[in-house]
């Protein structure tokens, strides 16, 4: 038995899984690296066998958390499938990879098996040039859809005949979206028939930038991926790097990191609650939550000196220590915040109109949620108990440091997502309090001071950002700069899953459904030439675009 029901919890046996995997993949099966007490297992196989492995591993409830590639130079392109089983067995990850030839990197697509790898494979096609066979939707994701070809060969503006169903563009610039994302929504009156999502309006190439900077500088680079979850990116990065370098972080530093991450989560969730309020027209809620949130920002400023970007962690520990006086002040402010937060959450719970606008809207049931591979509070609101903090504990989230519980809700709708985030805020306050208590008790160094060498190797690191599971994959070649840095952000998954949430509801529900996954386009992602408006499709050729642009100059 591979899957064992153990007291209601589904458990899998690692050895049996590996045995079965060996049978499927043989003779191309080679365990090349075992990490973290045997829980991160790297397996080399051939590219054609990846599909069989995917069928098997998805069947036993594995999560394909990322598909990415690393350029190994003359050796070829290394294509990785990162599977996570940490919701079944703590910390368990299987990383399957195949080396593809440089001249013709072709691999089978797993996107038809699961929607989880759809966007990831499209990204890999774009960034690494790997060709995926039989991909159901092989369009560009970060580049414009038509790149590098001009859209149409004709040099004229082309008008497609008017349809009955109006196509409404939501984005890239729209009042409902704070950042640039493009939702092509087909409506019949107010009812939504179909939605198409395009991201990539803010692609900054941070993954490439990180490969040209040293490991130490990257900590501050990756915190710039997203302004709101700015501590979670370094923590996931450090989780991978410290594991690779075999560095032990002192306990006190762990508590400081956890405290900062939780403060980050509190302010992110409250920021979201306000924005969600605005999306259903409750502007007063926005102002109230953002005022309460200032107290948390004050705590962050008190500890780190900055209101937004904390920049408080480095490899091996923390840059910043808390004095007893600071601990008392932070505790005071958090208690003040808690009383305000409870009042605001009561208002949200009790308001009939909030309930009316959010109940049974944007429903994503568990089987669909698993197929779409959503993460974070959105997944927990669909009743899926996945939380990196509990499943593969890092820093001071383990049971030996702090005690807390994962918040889930069975509602699967927008209201459930509101409830999960509200409860999580209160849980986070509790974790902060525990960390503050521990900081008074645990003394010692806050940074790893021993010398170490940079080994060759690879590692994955995860952290739970306010929006969900964040993945970093790092390859070191023994030099001061990482060879490869790959980032899989939570919003990447959640925005892709919007495809399943939006159709079937009315136009008035679109902003709150998009808002309910807490989309962070800065995490996820340039200018589209196709402009669609009231059913007419006006397509501009690249030549004409250049001509017009030059004429204007």
């Amino acid at each position: 038995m591979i899957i064992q029901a153990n007291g209601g919890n589904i458990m899998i046996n690692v050895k049996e899984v590996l045995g079965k995997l060996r049978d499927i993949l043989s003779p191309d099966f080679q365990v090349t690296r075992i990490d973290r007490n045997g829980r991160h297992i790297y397996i080399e196989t051939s590219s054609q066998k990846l599909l069989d492995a995917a069928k098997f591993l998805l069947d036993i409830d594995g999560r394909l958390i990322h598909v990415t590639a690393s350029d190994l130079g003359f050796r070829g392109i290394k294509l990785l499938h990162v599977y996570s089983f940490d919701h079944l067995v703590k910390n368990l990850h299987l990383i399957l990879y195949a080396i593809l030839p440089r001249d013709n990197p072709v691999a089978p697509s797993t996107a038809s098996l699961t929607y989880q790898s759809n966007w990831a494979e499209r990204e890999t096609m774009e960034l690494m040039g790997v060709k995926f066979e039989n991909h159901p939707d092989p369009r560009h994701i970060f580049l414009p859809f038509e790149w590098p070809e001009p859209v149409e060969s004709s040099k004229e503006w082309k008008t497609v005949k008017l349809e009955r169903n109006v196509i409404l563009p939501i984005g890239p610039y729209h009042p409902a979206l704070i950042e640039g994302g493009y939702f092509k929504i087909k409506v019949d009156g107010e009812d939504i028939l179909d939605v198409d999502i395009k991201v990539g309006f803010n692609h900054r190439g941070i993954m490439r930038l990180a490969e040209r900077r040293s490991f130490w500088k990257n900590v501050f680079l990756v915190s710039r991926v997203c302004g709101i979850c700015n501590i979670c990116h370094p923590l996931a990065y450090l989780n991978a790097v410290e594991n690779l370098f075999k560095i032990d972080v002192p306990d006190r530093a762990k508590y400081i990191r956890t405290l900062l991450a939780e403060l980050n989560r509190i302010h992110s969730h409250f920021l979201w609650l306000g924005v969600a309020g605005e999306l259903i027209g409750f502007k007063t809620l926005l102002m109230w939550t953002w005022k309460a949130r200032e107290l948390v920002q004050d705590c962050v400023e008190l500890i780190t000196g900055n209101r937004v970007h904390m920049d408080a962690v480095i490899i091996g520990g923390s840059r910043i220590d808390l004095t007893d006086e600071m601990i008392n002040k932070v505790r005071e402010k958090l208690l003040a915040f808690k009383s305000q937060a409870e009042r605001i959450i009561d208002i949200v719970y009790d308001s009939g109109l909030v309930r009316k606008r959010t109940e049974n809207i944007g429903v994503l049931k568990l089987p669909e949620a698993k197929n779409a591979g959503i993460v974070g509070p959105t997944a927990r609101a669909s009743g899926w108990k996945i939380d990196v903090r509990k499943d593969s504990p890092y820093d001071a989230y383990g049971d030996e440091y702090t005690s807390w519980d994962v918040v889930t809700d069975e509602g699967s709708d927008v209201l459930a997502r509101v409830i999960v985030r509200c409860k999580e805020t209160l849980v986070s306050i509790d974790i902060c309090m525990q960390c503050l208590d521990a900081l008074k008790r645990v003394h010692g160094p806050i940074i790893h001071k021993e010398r170490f060498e940079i080994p060759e190797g690879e590692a994955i690191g995860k952290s739970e950002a306010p929006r969900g599971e964040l993945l970093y994959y790092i390859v070191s070649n023994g030099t001061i700069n990482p060879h490869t840095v790959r980032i899989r952000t939570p919003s990447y998954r959640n925005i892709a899953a919007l495809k399943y949430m939006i159709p079937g509801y009315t136009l008035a529900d679109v902003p709150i459904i998009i808002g309910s996954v807490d989309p962070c386009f800065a995490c996820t992602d340039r200018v589209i030439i196709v402009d669609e408006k009231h059913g007419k499709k006006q397509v501009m050729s690249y030549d004409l675009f250049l001509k017009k642009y030059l004429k204007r100059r």
Partner: protein
Amino acid sequence: MSFILKALIITLIGFILGIILTFEIRKVFARAQYRLGPLTSVYPELKALLGSTRILQPLYDVLKLFYKETIIPQTTSKILFIISPVISLLLSVFSLYFVSFGGFSVFANRDHSLIWLIYVLIAITIFWLIGSASSSSPWAIIGTRREAELLFSIEFSLLISAFSIAIISNSLSIQEIVYAQREFLPFILVNPMAAITFLLSILGKLRLKPFDISEAEVEIVSGPCTEYSGKLLGLIYLSKYFMTVTLVAFFIDLFLAGGQISNFTLLNVITFIILTLIVTFILSLIHALMPRFKIDQAFKWVLTRMWPLSIISLIFSLIIRSLGVV
């Protein structure tokens, strides 16, 4: 006092009052959110820059728009697009003449002024709709559709609650209704259900929360006004200011005896103005503390809550009438 002079004075009062009431809605909305809103008295260091008060902020908004370029999209049907804001402004000014400003009015003493007023109020909204529908922007069309749905539902309860008052007072003249209240009691005490439905209908007519569905900026940008800019948008703003005054004054005339507490017109006008501020305060408080309905929810809510209540108020009025109390 001659007819034209009276009309001019009422237009001026309506204009100033419209700006002050709009200011009040913004101010209460801001204070409920821990914001300052437009300042009643500007900080000393900013006085040179901003002037001593920003009570006239809604006026400055409109003046700014009049300085701006008016863009008319090619896809619009031009005549309707330009003419409908103008007509809705004219109608909203015209609607002022039918309400009694503390006994001070032009047409309120006519026999069927109540019916006239309701016609004009519907016409203002309809011309907003015609203008926005002619703009052929998808946002504006969806906004128009929503506004039209809301119009059908809200207008009914407004109509019924106004007529239930007419039944009590046995008159269709607004002046007569006000006099009937002076002799008996303000009708808010006689028929509070009609007052509630009327107040809620005002929210819908003025596109205040929870009925600002046609202007839900996160969904449909700015709804019916999406393609309007510059002077035409300024006209729409102005007509909204006038309409605010008319509706609030209409409420006071029907339910609060038109502010007429004595035989002195000046004192009555002052009482009337104070009452408009109070009624607007209640409206803006609801506006501040409510999220937005979806259009289907709003329609259903109006259908299941406001329509029965207004019909009950109508029956109640008929009973009172048949008892011959008033």
